[in-house]
């Protein structure tokens, strides 16, 4: 698993939380070597920060697509209503 580790900073929220779950699970099983458990803990902390950042990014943006005469999208406009 750790061979193909994607940098935490590039992870989507979903990827980060999935790996965080995996990390916690591995530590819970308690069968990891000491050095690895420290590495896992550090990665877990990073993943948690990433998740929190992504959660904090949650913002609402609503736009309506404007269409031209032939029904093709032209751009966006604020949605009134």
């Amino acid at each position, binding site marked *: 698993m750790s061979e193909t580790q994607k940098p935490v900073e590039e992870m989507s929220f979903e990827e980060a939380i999935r790996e965080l779950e995996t990390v916690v699970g591995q530590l819970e099983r*308690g069968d990891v070597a000491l050095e690895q458990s420290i590495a896992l803990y550090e990665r877990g902390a990073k993943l948690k920060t990433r*998740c929190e950042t992504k959660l904090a990014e949650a913002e609402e*943006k609503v736009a309506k*697509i404007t269409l031209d005469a032939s029904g093709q999208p032209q751009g966006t406009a604020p949605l009134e209503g």
Partner: protein
Amino acid sequence: MDLFEDEAPKGGDNAHEFSVSEISGAVKKTVEGAFGHVRVRGELGRVTHHRSGHVYLDLKDERASLSGVIWRGSASKMETRPEEGMEVIATGRLTTFQGQSKYQMVIESLVPAGAGALMAMLEKRRKMLEGEGLFDPARKRPIPWLPEVIGVVTSPTGAVIRDILHRLRDRFPRKVLVWPVAVQGPNCAPDVTRAIRGFNALSVGGALPRPDLIIVARGGGSIEDLWGFNEESVVRAAAESAIPLISAVGHETDTTLIDHASDRRAPTPTAAAEIAVPVRAELAADIAQMGARLGQLQRYAMDRRGERLRDLSRGLPRSDALLQGPRQRLDDLDRRLPGALRAAIAAKRLALSEHPLRPALAAVPVARARDRVERAAATLPGAFRGGIAQRRLALSQHSLRPAGLSERLRQERRHAERVAGRLTPELVTDRLRRLSERLAALDRLRETLSHRATLERGFAVVRAGGTVVTDRASAAAAAELEIEFKDGRLTVGQGGGGSEPPAAPAPKAPRRKPASKPEQPDLF
């Protein structure tokens, strides 16, 4: 011709000029006259039971719709209660509603006519599309767990989009792109089809963000209101959408064909928003909890390892205890070492003294040889002179010319005297001495290599018929064995007793050869 054509409109001017009421009245008279009693087969569309007791409804087929009314009196007498979607045969008359330029059917009786034709058509279409595999569960894409951008295909006004946005905001605010469409009427199906395809046509990273989830939504309505979502083009667009699509059309009980083709059907638009995103607050709580567990687990892992280390170190013996035994052994050996060394030297010295080097042994033959040499040396000059005298005598007998001979003789004599002068006993005695020394050295070596020393230590040599016996098999095969100890040999018969044979042969054997050379016992 031009003239006539130009005049034609003018001709119209000459036609009777109706007032609106007049024409309405004329139409009414015509309609009521021509359709005073009709039977119409169709499917019931929207049915409204007014609280006055009158029932307003639509009769329809694929292309047309006819408004109808059942007056209270007729409605109360009817055996079947009119319901939407019901295929019926209505009997009554047509009339017009002059005030609104509308016409309608006044229905006097209503009988069911089997399964709704519209529904039958819908079912036929559903089967066809299903046959093409458009509803195959294997086609369905998983709904993203947390989409970044959600595309909503619906009316930009009205409750539906508000419900969706409201629920999204509650759960997890996201970017939402609304593609406005007509959600009923003739434009509905083409609009929705274009919207689904349009969202799919957006490129990732383009001016308009490409949604990673599409919601096609509409509020509840009659079957004909929702009809657009049964249209083939819409169903195909939904099935082909590369972006996962949630359909939320009508209420929970309404099922349209897009619901079969979508990746997920939501019973309501609000439910679609719930399927679309997880609840942010719950996620935050989950993450906080996982963070806390992470810390706990790490501390626990450290504590547990520390504990184990302490346990193990308790079990480890103390270092001085560990070294006690070996140290004691070392001390013991240290104490014994000097004594052992001395004992070893004494033993060696003893062994050495048991093998004395006797130069006298060599001295005897050397002395004898020296005697012989000295004797030979003593006689040599005399013999030489005797030889000369003999020759002189022989010479004198030959009576040669003495002068020449005597001269020669003088020369010979001088020569002989020179040779005799060089001949000394040392020539021989030196060589003898060297030989004697070498002999002594060889003898020492021989003694060292001799098995006799081994015999001295208590070992014995066993022979059979003159051959040394080194294994049990050979010993068993021999008739009798001769055993050599340090002090002599003993012959032992192979009878039963072992040491029975008389001691007589024992001394005989060693005596056979050593008789001539007592100092050199035979090795074999």
